[in-house]
């Protein structure tokens, strides 16, 4: 554990963030099941603690680059629910006017600069953001959030090396959920941990329990402090689990028996709630209130967003380059 943990307010905020993510995920899966909403949906359920933990350790203006499995990161980094859901549903009020979709949410106001659908491609871009911060001397840190499977792609290697050589203020945050699509970790690499790869770049690497938001908070705080002090990048691996598989509809037949049950035992939201109640930070009633509040907020926002308009037809050729519009 790091020297200074989060204060009680931050802890409550982390809890609320986790609850909100889970509520949002729940609402979306229900809506897809019900047929109200149609989309390729990559549930982050089970990874709430990673997102809430790292985001709490960052400044609001720190940069984030994330992936298609990004809803938890988006919410934790402060993307407002309405434009976020509107984007996921292809509405004009979305973060990208509905033109990007769930794989391409951005919200520069809170530092979310990119969500990409290409595995690994966010890492060099995060390095570039960190270079901008380094040059501008604004003390910002860039976080690249990616999966275990992504650590096998070329862009990971090039970005880590460049960041190390340039001592960039970037944190490579690997959310190791045990699988890339249907391929288990041990089937796609031979190291015990993704963080074992940090040494190849002369970079510190650390592995933490990704289902413990405080462990993530601590590791990311340390990494951010190093980055801001000019000491360069860190590879932080948060070990967690994808509770609903790769994409909505995944029947997870490839998961060995028992593994999923064990993962649900370790489910981070309930676990953190228990921890907060046990340690007296939160009463059961207060925790219930947070859960109800988040569920209501999500339900209301989703209803509201479902009633919103699709983008206007003249958006088709707008934003291709500066000033493009219409035929």
């Amino acid at each position, binding site marked *: 554990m790091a020297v200074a943990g989060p204060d009680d307010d931050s802890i409550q905020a982390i809890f609320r963030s986790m609850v909100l993510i889970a509520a949002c995920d729940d609402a979306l899966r229900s809506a897809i099941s019900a047929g109200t909403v149609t989309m390729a949906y990559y549930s982050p359920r089970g990874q709430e603690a990673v997102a809430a933990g790292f985001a709490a350790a960052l400044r609001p203006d720190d940069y984030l680059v994330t992936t298609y499995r990004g809803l938890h990161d988006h919410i934790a980094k402060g993307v407002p629910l309405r434009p976020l859901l509107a984007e996921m549903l*292809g509405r*004009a009020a979305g973060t990208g006017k509905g033109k990007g*979709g769930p794989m391409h949410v951005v919200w520069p106001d809170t530092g979310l600069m990119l969500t990409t659908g290409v595995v690994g491609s966010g890492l060099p871009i995060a390095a570039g953001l960190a270079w901008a911060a380094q040059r501008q001397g604004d003390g910002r840190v860039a976080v690249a959030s990616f999966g275990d499977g992504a650590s096998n792609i070329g862009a990971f290697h090039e970005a880590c090396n460049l960041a190390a050589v340039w001592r960039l203020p970037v944190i490579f945050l690997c959310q190791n959920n045990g699988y890339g699509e249907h391929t288990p970790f041990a089937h796609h690499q031979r190291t015990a941990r993704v963080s074992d790869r940090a040494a190849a770049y002369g970079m510190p690497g650390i592995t933490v329990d990704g289902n413990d938001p405080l462990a993530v908070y601590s590791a990311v705080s340390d990494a951010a402090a190093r980055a801001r002090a000019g000491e360069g990048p860190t590879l932080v691996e948060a070990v967690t689990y994808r509770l609903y598989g790769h994409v909505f509809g995944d029947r997870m*037949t490839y998961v060995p028996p028992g593994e999923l049950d064990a993962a649900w035992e370790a489910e981070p939201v309930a676990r953190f709630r228990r921890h907060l109640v046990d340690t007296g930070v939160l009463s059961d009633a207060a925790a219930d209130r947070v859960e109800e509040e988040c569920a209501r907020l999500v339900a209301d926002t989703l209803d509201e967003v479902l009633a919103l308009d*699709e983008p206007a037809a003249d958006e088709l050729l707008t934003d*291709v380059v500066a000033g493009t519009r219409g035929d």
Partner: protein
Amino acid sequence: MTDAAAPAETSVRAALTRALDEALGADETVVLLGEDIADPSGGVFGVTKGLSTKYGSDRVRDTPISEQAIVGAAVGAALGGLRPVAEVMFMDFLGLCLDQLANHAAKLRYMSGGRTPVPMVLRTAVGAGLQVGAQHSQMLEAWITHVPGLQVVVPSTPSEARALLRSCIESDDPSVFIEQVPLLQRRGVLDDAPVPLGVADTKRAGTDVTVITYGRQVHDALAVAESLAADGPDVEVLDLRSLSPLDSDAVVASVSRTRRAVVFHEAVVTGGFGAELAALVSEALFGRLLAPVLRVGAVPAPLPYAKNLETLALPGRDRLSTAIGHLMSFGG
């Protein structure tokens, strides 16, 4: 209860699986590699389902997420005497492995004066029309038809999907085989006729206009042709099937009869393969056309996510009909 007399229909997906199965069965040197292609996954679109179980997960082999290594390993395996069929999950990811494809697979035969041919196939999928956004929807055949040494195939029916994939696997040169995801469900009766690369097929004969097309757009073109049949122009639909080698004789022969042509493809029009076709037809039939060669394809923008915009962006039947109407407004 199915009609015992009607021959069974097969999906494009199943036809592809069958082609791979047959190739693996027929030739020990055929191997498959790609992300999540082995069972139980059997490929994200299910095309390789059952094959690793039947032929072993060393021959139908899962890879890490490493597109450069997938394509590079296919190149190397081909140099080493195998006939690898690599899968790159989405064509959009060509940007990650085009060096292996264009600088290596395509050029090694030539640069070695014929010593090192590269018999490999790269299978890849295109998601346009499924609201998967700008990074999972791109038909990028223009990138690879511009590279000498590569063969490029886009099937439109189950029989041809099977036969063309077999032809690619049997070819001693590298091919890119493009599978449009919405086409995978399309069903048809499977025949056993082989289809060589470089031979177009007239899917519908007509006298007034030639629609030059390929892939799933063939079916839209046929639908438009039928819808016009009663009291509109008589539309010929030419399915290219392979873009490299290109059956330019068939293209020119058809348009020399109809004297009007429209190229219809899913890719962005600007710099698309349609430009090559339009340039070729315009030059070959200069002075003999009744109307300019038109091009119908995606609008010049990244593919938008919102359903309404995605529909507007992609070339549909309406735009093809309009283009045909425009062609007919020229005398004849």
